[in-house]
């Protein structure tokens, strides 16, 4: 019995690990790509930006804050119709990428905005003095200089998405966190709880290590 149960535990956890990686990977990718858009608009229209437009900045900034303060569990349920529209179904690992991405966009947008706006204003002024256009400054100065800071933000995003993906279990997303709750907590299987926790700790450590290494290399 012990062998059988161990073998099934291995299988369950392997499947769950794959599901976690799958959800985190795609929601990170989508949210970073989409999040760049509001981040760039915020940076350009900010009072100290290249094209200050106060109403645009204020409204977009307000929206980002509203979506950031939305509790993830509520968002999960609220976006079900939208998920069905995009994925074709509302339940499952792929379906859970939609709420994960939606909750991550305002988070990463704010992080990218902050990273871009930390660019030394003197460097921007120097670029202006050589006759650079706003788009050139955005691309060759703002984004180029902010890459390491944005990367740090993405690491932060990945780690918090690992946490959120556990909650995605409620819409049938599966994943390590889901196993830890359903087997480890609800069925009193301490071994599942321990193994899942160790996997998550190792995963987070690994991501942070890779992130730190890349940060050093890029800056």
């Amino acid at each position, binding site marked *: 019995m012990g062998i059988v149960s161990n073998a099934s535990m291995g299988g369950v956890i392997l499947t769950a690990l794959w599901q976690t990686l799958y959800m985190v990977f795609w929601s990170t990718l989508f949210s970073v790509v989409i999040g760049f858009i509001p981040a760039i608009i915020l940076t350009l229209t900010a009072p100290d930006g290249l094209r200050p437009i106060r109403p645009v900045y204020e409204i977009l900034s307000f929206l980002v804050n509203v979506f950031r303060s939305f509790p993830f569990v509520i968002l999960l349920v609220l976006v079900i119709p939208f998920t069905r529209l995009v994925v074709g179904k509302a339940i499952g690992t792929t379906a859970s990428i939609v709420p994960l991405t939606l909750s991550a966009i305002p988070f990463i947008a704010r992080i990218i905005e902050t990273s871009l706006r930390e660019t*030394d204003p*003197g*460097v921007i*002024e*120097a*670029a*202006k*003095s*050589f*006759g*650079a*256009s706003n788009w*050139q400054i955005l691309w*060759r*100065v703002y984004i*180029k*200089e902010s*890459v*390491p800071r944005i990367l740090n933000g993405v690491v932060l995003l990945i780690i918090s998405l690992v946490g959120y993906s556990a909650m995605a279990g409620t819409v049938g997303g599966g994943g390590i966190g889901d196993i830890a709750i359903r087997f480890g907590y609800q069925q009193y299987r301490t071994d599942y709880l321990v193994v899942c926790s160790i996997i998550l700790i190792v995963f987070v450590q690994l991501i942070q290590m890779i992130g730190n290494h890349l940060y050093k290399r*890029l*800056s």
Partner: protein
Amino acid sequence: MIEISNVRKSFQDVEVLKGISLEIKDHEIYGIVGQSGAGKSTLLRCINGLEPYDSGKIVVDGTLVSSQDKAQLRNLQKRMGMIFQSFNLLERLDVYENVALPMKFWGISTKSEESKKKIRELIGLVGLEEKMHAKPRELSGGQKQRVAIARALVLDPQFLLCDEATSALDPEITKGILSLLQRINREMGITVAIVTHQMEVVKQICGRVAFLHNGSVLAQGRPEELFIRPAHPEIKAFLRDSSELLPTEGVNIQIFFLGEDSGEPVVTQMARELGRDFSICWAKLEDFRDNVYGSLVLNVEEADKEAVCNFLESKKVAWEVL
């Protein structure tokens, strides 16, 4: 030539430029001098179009600097290289890439043999061949400013605008940067405009200066005319003259040495010819672009005043009773 006439500019309610007029001629090194807050950096930023001005005119070789016509302003900016107090290099680019950057803004290929040669030559000109692929954080302040100078020259400008370029550097490094600017001015014929609050910058390289105070030009001319015998209390304050330390008894007479007569031993002659005693209470000699200028304060007894004054008059030196 840069012609500035009656330029005014306000930030909210504060008028920082109150009708500035001056002229920077081709191939000269022109200093814009004054205390912090005098408006000199704002003026330089207006010349480059980084900052719009409210009224008046700035004309560069017949073209008006105006934020209305963006394309024309860009073309003017190409002809005016600029360097800054905080160097403003891109941290993630190495020396070579930083120097090449303005070319990219102008769609000039940095891959062509011609461009590569030019970038390397400029890095050579500022003496950083060995740091070609170093990142700014590996460089000292003086080296960073050298990179910034090479970057400012890469578009073949006619003008080089320097905004407190040496204020963050120590005196020895400052000297090196100034002689580099002087070389660029002499060998490449580039007109240099320098905003500074440092007298050593003015003394070492400026051919002409404008002294700005509270947004107005207080005086203009050769630095030795402005600073050896300062006509305005504001300039005296800027130089921090210690004339208050002079003796209160007797008569204090200041003698000025302005260039050609500074070699003549007026003081010892006077002692010998008049046979009277006096004390030297204060003296200062300064180098202005390799010429020595200076002044000296003598304290004589009231009874000797007339004789001394007559003697100085006969010698045709500049002097005044304090």
